[in-house]
């Protein structure tokens, strides 16, 4: 069950989000899990459970969100996915990966800006190094020698920057075209666009096809994943929401750096004894 079988679950959800979004997967983060909806917050008989309220999902706009989610889903099924299937038939997978690398590399200056805005100098150094190496030895970023050299790709964005600055995520929010987000991440999306040099220099008739290529290419790489996720999810909307919120929380927390702070999640593993 290891890698192959299980891996997709979550990654898929995350991909699903960004693929639909087409956006460089921006946004959000965290602490979104606070309020319960339709959850009687019973601490009940349970043994050790501290009065902590059940971890829950903050989605007061669910009716609207579900509507937009359905719209995005339809857009994907009837437009984006068919186009991506065509793309997939024409462009061999190594080519697709190269293109994805190119776009990831082109987004590095923006990521670097966010590293700096968050005061993460080490990450800034990594991203700078990656950009230098991949742009030159990686032939404008189509190859990714930096990863092979052990410099992991960064993932900072302005939604996370806002989180680091103490701005709360706000409720879960599904954006048309862009997919899962939050007020903070949606703001971050706009800010990241403003942080992108091409936004100022490329005229629309250049930037639109470029963006289209990026989105279709990303969607093409996610074909299998999304298909599996659609078929498997018990409730696709809830699955994507859960994955997105957890994923963003995790990014903001910079997981690897501080492994011992998962306490707010510990409630998840509390078995109230009996049986």
């Amino acid at each position: 069950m290891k890698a192959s079988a299980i891996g997709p679950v979550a990654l898929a959800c995350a991909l699903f989000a960004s693929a639909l979004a087409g956006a460089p997967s921006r946004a959000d983060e965290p602490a979104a899990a606070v309020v319960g909806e339709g959850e009687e917050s019973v601490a009940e008989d349970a043994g050790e459970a501290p009065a902590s309220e059940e971890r829950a999902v903050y989605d007061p706009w669910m009716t609207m969100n579900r509507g937009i989610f359905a719209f995005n889903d339809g857009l994907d099924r009837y437009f984006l996915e068919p186009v991506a299937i065509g793309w997939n038939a024409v462009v061999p997978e190594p080519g697709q990966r190269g293109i994805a690398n190119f776009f990831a590399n082109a987004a590095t200056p923006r990521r670097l800006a966010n590293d700096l805005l968050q005061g993460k100098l080490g990450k800034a150094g990594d991203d700078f190094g990656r950009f230098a190496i991949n742009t030159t030895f990686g032939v404008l970023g189509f190859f990714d020698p930096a990863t092979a050299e052990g410099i992991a790709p960064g993932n900072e964005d302005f939604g996370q920057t806002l989180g680091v600055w103490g701005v709360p995520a706000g409720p879960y929010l599904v954006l048309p075209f862009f997919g899962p987000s939050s007020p903070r991440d949606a703001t971050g999306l706009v800010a990241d666009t403003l942080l992108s040099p091409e936004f100022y220099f490329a005229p629309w008739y250049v930037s639109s096809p470029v963006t289209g290529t990026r989105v279709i290419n990303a969607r093409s790489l996610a074909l299998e994943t999304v298909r599996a996720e659609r078929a498997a999810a018990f409730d696709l909307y809830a699955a994507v929401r859960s994955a997105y919120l957890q994923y963003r929380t995790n990014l903001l927390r910079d997981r690897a750096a501080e492994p011992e702070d998962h306490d707010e999640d510990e409630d998840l593993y509390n078995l109230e004894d009996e049986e």
Partner: protein
Amino acid sequence: MRMRISTISKTKSEVGALCAALMACLCAGAALAATDAPPPDSAKALIEKTVVQVLAVLRDDSRTNAQRRLELEKIAHARFDFRTMARLVLARDWKRLDAAKRDEFVDQFTTYLANDYGNRLERYEQEDVQVLDEQPKPRGDVEVRTKIVGGQNNGAIVDYRMRKGKDGSWHIIDVVIEGISLVANFRDQFREVIAHGGPEALLQKLKEKNAAAAAA
């Protein structure tokens, strides 16, 4: 790594230990194999062993997908504690089911997971898995961190949350991929159904989904 495939001894019996010791002498990778031979495996050793087993099945081209699936289900049943997973997913709603319904829920949930993941097998593309380290967690749990190497998800971090049973052996109770917990994801998916119809409604819906999958 690969040579330990035959070190599958999951019992801590002396026979198992002996076999493992023998293996250790036989293979070039003696040092590796010897470390996880005798007493109950540590959580990390268990994951390492499982990774080797699973990759061996996935890479065996002589088997059909259906055969692989069966093999993997066998491994999964040995390694996962599906009952605990089901309880964690239901959280306090677990108590609202009587004993028979609980058993039924565990069965249905396990079947659901098996269908779900079984369907993803064709997508295996020769990724490798590195077992990195283990971290102690509250309640005596342990989290074993692994990393996927190669393929589209290259570099993805997968954590296995493990708990020790009464017999002293470790079992997986959650899989956390890039920070996304399987248990939490299902809990979040089930929440609304439970809020509207209680755990019985959920059980009913799971049965329907499983029946539909079986028919397909």
